[in-house]
């Protein structure tokens, strides 16, 4: 999809806890914006499963866009 729009992405595939890893990469990579998706979990879902997007949005030291 990105190629179709003329955007050449850099691909990173680190291992680890998804939320903490995305937060760390966002900080270390000095990115201007981080875009994450949201599964639309309710309160109970977020408590039981955790929310990567919520973690990143509240802890990353950069602008975070949560796409729904």
């Amino acid at each position: 999809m990105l190629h179709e729009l003329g955007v050449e992405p850099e691909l990173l595939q680190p291992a680890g806890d998804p939320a903490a890893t995305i937060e760390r990469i966002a900080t270390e990579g000095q990115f201007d914006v981080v875009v994450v998706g949201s599964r639309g979990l309710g309160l109970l879902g977020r408590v039981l499963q955790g929310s990567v997007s919520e973690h990143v949005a509240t802890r990353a030291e950069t602008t975070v866009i949560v796409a729904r």
Partner: protein
Amino acid sequence: MAYDGGTPARKALETAAELAKKFDASVAVVSVVPVHPGRAPIDPWDDP
């Protein structure tokens, strides 16, 4: 942008692509391989 292959991630990918085009920005796609203590890493792209 963070990507795990799911529907929300595809929406995030579209959003990132639109922003990149509008602002002539670069995009880095981060796909984290979940690591759980005591278990081998599972590539999210592997079949279950």
